[in-house]
């Protein structure tokens, strides 16, 4: 399995190949990822989510550029090279299955840096803001030795919370003029924020938007009730196109990591994620093996019966699982 050594060795071409194999559920790719698994768990996975046009890609560009130049505060500063991977997700067309992945347009400052690796992904039908195989792709980049993996979701609305289940630190990006105060207290992505960024803070209405976000956070349970170990979600103002406020966001990300580790929440979050991943994989595998064991055409026949209202979906499932047990 030469691919494993090549990737651990820092071979970018091999890494790019492997990411494709992993994204396509190719058996060779998945076997390679299995072999790489012991090398995962070192990266700080940082999710960026928020509405369309709030400036996520531009912010990713600036965060990565800043960290490449200045390092991370309290982590050796500029002296220690931080290697950065970016996974940028854009939507697949539900009609053609094609996609235009345009996040690189805003990340041109990162070109030519061998310690930055940018990969675009199409959602391929997944809802929730990430692509179908974002998690194994992030794992692969983690194993390849990237210190930071920045995961940028599709332009997300209110319920695309999947990234919070993948990342250690979730940044929700908002911009002025996108909605009133009620938008800010609805359930959804705002609740997943570890860091809130109000980008385009030079636009009119920025102060009001910041106040709405602040009020909305304050309406929630106090930090001790929320069970987040005393983390106060910072609200930071940025103008990503100018690079304003970037240092503060990097500082907040780094502080959040320290907090997670000191409070024991890092271990807790990782454990939850591993458990969820196992459950999902188990569900997929059991489903595949159950369907595999059905006699030819039996499943289609049950679908017919449900469609003709002769059988309820729950009764159909009971029948299928009973057959499997017999």
């Amino acid at each position: 399995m030469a691919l494993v050594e090549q990737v651990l060795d820092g071979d970018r071409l091999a890494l790019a190949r492997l990411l494709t194999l992993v994204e396509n559920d190719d058996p060779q790719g998945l076997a390679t990822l299995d072999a790489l698994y012991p090398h995962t768990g070192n990266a700080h996975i940082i999710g960026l989510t928020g509405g369309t046009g709030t400036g996520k890609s531009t912010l990713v560009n600036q965060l990565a550029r800043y960290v490449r130049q200045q390092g991370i505060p309290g982590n050796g500063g500029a002296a220690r090279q931080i290697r950065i991977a970016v996974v940028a997700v854009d939507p697949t067309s539900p009609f053609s299955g094609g996609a235009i992945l345009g996040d690189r347009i805003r990340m041109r400052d990162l070109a030519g840096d061998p310690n930055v690796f940018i990969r675009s992904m199409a959602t391929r039908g997944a809802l929730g803001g990430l692509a179908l195989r974002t998690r194994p792709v992030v794992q692969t980049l983690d194993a390849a030795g990237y210190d930071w993996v920045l995961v940028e979701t599709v332009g997300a609305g209110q319920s695309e919370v999947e990234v919070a289940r993948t990342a250690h630190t979730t940044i929700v990006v908002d911009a002025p003029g996108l909605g009133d105060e009620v938008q800010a207290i609805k359930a959804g992505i705002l609740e997943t924020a570890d860091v809130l960024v109000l980008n385009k803070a030079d636009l009119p209405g920025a102060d009001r938007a910041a106040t709405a976000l602040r009020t909305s956070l304050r309406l929630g349970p106090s930090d001790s009730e929320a069970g987040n170990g005393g983390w106060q979600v910072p609200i930071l103002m940025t103008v990503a196109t100018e690079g304003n406020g970037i240092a503060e966001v990097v500082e907040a990300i780094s502080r959040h990591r320290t907090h997670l580790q000191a409070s024991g929440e890092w271990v807790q979050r990782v454990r939850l994620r591993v458990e969820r991943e196992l459950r999902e994989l188990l569900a997929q595998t059991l489903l595949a093996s159950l369907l595999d064991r059905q006699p030819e055409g039996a499943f289609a026949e049950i679908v017919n019966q449900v469609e003709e209202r002769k059988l309820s979906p729950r009764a159909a499932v009971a029948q299928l699982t009973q057959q499997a047990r017999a």
Partner: protein
Amino acid sequence: MSQSKGRIIIAKPGLDGHDRGAKVIARALRDAGFEVIYTGLRQTPEMVAEAALQEDADAIGLSILSGAHMALVPRVLEILVEQGQAGLPVLLGGIIPDDDVPTLKAQGIFAVFGPGTNTSEILKAFASAVASRRAAS
């Protein structure tokens, strides 16, 4: 999840600022089911090759209207070889004089499209570029 129909880089190397043609092609490729990585204006040959590497592209489409294709194209091909991506199909569209086409093909360009080329012909060329790339790897 099986593989996509093809991952294609659409790039505009050089300094001209007209990307309408590139966008039309990107859109047509999307509608034909390809995943298009659109890198935008004013790319250097290095940036194009790097994007192709990181994205594990099946083909590159270059749009050049500035007349600088005889300088930019060989450079892109050269860097691809340096990176170990020799044989990655590169397709070129734009204002390309007929006289230049044989030279470009000899350098290894997969296909050249001038103004007025039928979109379906371009889509066919990309499909066969992806097929040849996948057969080779």
